[in-house]
């Protein structure tokens, strides 16, 4: 009670005569009587979201049950036909497999490697060195995937590319090849490019999480004679467990949304070896005009990412409570 009463007095510095007189009359109506006009603040955002995010999402389900051609305008209800075709499509399964491979390798680099790297950096004594390292590792994440994609397309080039040049320089000429032109190496090439781009982002986030750990833990354990490596495994990693879980879900979810990386470097080729769900959707819908089919692929992506998002929400809620 006393605190509420105190609040009604204008804080020092704002104690103008106007405020004093307006005090009892103004407060109550603003609180309860008509709250509806307040909705005006959230309305523009809500309308935009409904029109351009939620409405299309609902439409997508409808389209996935139709065959439609956007240019002729023909539409026909076909039930689950598109999904049946999807299940029988080897390229779809190849794409899904590639997304899983993407997720697996990304977890290694963007969760485990990034976590260890962040621990190592935060363990350094020189603060300026720490800041500089974190920023440099992050740099690739600030530039667009298109630039990264084009850059790596050059790096992987058989002639004049950095990778083959490097192999040549260290005497491993036999390993040289057209990295993105070979179905056996193309997918791995694209994924490694993506790790180069993304590991610094995750390292930065882990670094932020590590900075929240009280320094005393380290000081106390150091007094007990515990070395830096053991500190990482018995203090740092357990205490950023939640961030690790969160990053795993975010990373897996990202791996199922991959598009740009593949589109710019290989467009899904050679021979569909680098096809992922996103590029297969693009190819089906926007190159082959098979819109119902593309919508069905979109539903698959939706179901996978929604499931991951729900796990993430449970995760975060548990943490907050």
């Amino acid at each position, binding site marked *: 009670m006393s605190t509420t009463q105190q609040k009604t007095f204008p804080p020092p510095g704002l104690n103008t005569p106007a405020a004093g007189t307006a005090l009892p009359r103004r407060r109550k109506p603003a609180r309860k009587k008509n709250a509806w006009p307040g909705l005006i603040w959230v309305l523009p955002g809500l309308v935009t979201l409904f029109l351009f995010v939620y409405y299309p999402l609902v439409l997508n389900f409808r389209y996935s049950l139709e065959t439609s051609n956007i240019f002729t305008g023909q539409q026909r209800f076909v039930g689950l036909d598109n999904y049946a075709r999807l299940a029988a499509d080897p390229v779809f399964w190849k794409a899904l497999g590639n997304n899983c491979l993407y997720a697996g390798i990304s977890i290694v680099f963007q969760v485990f490697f990034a976590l260890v790297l962040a621990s190592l*950096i935060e363990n350094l004594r020189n603060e300026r060195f720490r800041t500089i390292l974190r920023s440099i590792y992050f740099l690739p994440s600030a530039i667009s995937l298109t630039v990264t994609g084009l850059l790596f397309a050059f790096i992987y080039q058989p002639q004049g590319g950095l990778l083959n040049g490097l192999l040549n320089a260290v005497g491993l000429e036999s390993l040289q090849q057209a990295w993105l032109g070979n179905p056996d190496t193309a997918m791995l090439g694209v994924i490694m490019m993506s790790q180069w781009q993304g590991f610094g982002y995750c390292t930065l986030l882990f670094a932020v999480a590590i900075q929240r750990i009280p320094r005393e833990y380290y000081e106390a354990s150091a007094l007990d004679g515990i070395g830096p490596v053991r500190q990482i495994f018995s203090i740092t990693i357990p205490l950023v467990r939640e961030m690790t879980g969160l990053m795993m879900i975010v990373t897996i979810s990202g791996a199922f949304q991959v598009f740009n990386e593949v589109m710019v470097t290989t467009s899904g080729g050679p021979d569909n070896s680098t096809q992922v769900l996103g590029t297969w959707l693009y190819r089906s819908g926007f190159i082959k005009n098979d819109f119902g089919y*593309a919508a069905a692929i979109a539903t698959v992506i939706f179901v996978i990412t929604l499931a991951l998002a729900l796990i993430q929400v449970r995760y975060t809620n548990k943490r907050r409570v």
Partner: protein
Amino acid sequence: MTSPTRLWPIIGRLVLTGFLLGLVIVVLYPLLWMVISSMKSNSEILGNPFAWPTSLDLSSYGRAIDKGVGTYLFNSVLVTALSVVSTTLLSAWAAFGLTRINIPFSKPILMIIVGGLMLAPTVALVPLVKLMQSWGLYDTYWALIILYTAFRVPFTTFLIRSYMIDLPIDVDEAAVLDGATRRQTFWRVTMPMCTPIIVSAVILQVLFAWNEFLFALIFIGSDTVKTLPVGLATLSSRAVTDFPSVFAGMTIAAVPMIVLFILGQRYFVRGLAEGVGR
């Protein structure tokens, strides 16, 4: 004489430092190579990838701009600027409504807005093409500005809301007592207090809009409306005889974001930290 037990930590530190610096080279060298290659000639690039350019030749930048990078750059700046303004405004309004005013259904509204975070852009792509065509927005700046706004309002609202909720409400109330309307309170009191998170939100939105590729690829057909990411992809598929100009275009696209990141680092890291806890 140093005993072996005291030597090990030193060796460990050396190995660690060597590893961290090696990783710095892995990250920086390709970026540096991109800039260096933009100053080389086609045959120099194909000849020896590690060689320095024979002369400081910046003509590739002029050629890149002539080939369309100038237009793409302009489009990128325009689309990014407008989407940053609209996203920030809509999100700050919504955050204000959700945290500073008693509005009906504020819980479900928050869920609807933040729920948008869960949706991948690909999921709405097919119907959006149809909608954009029927609304006459296809192949215009508006398609990109609206979509960049719509798909980023959830994240940005979440970011600003989580900051606003921790700000003391007393100052707002004092302003209301002083006779300020809600609108005045928002602009003169709440927004200035939110400056740090607004800066974070703006930086993150600039990064997003500048680098976005999927929407720009699908909703833009004409060369005159293309933004840098899609424009560069087009350029590289055309300019097989002029690699340096592609490298120049890439440098033009990359450098502003690198500069922005370095300048806004403090805010940026904070925004990331608050954003990932979503």
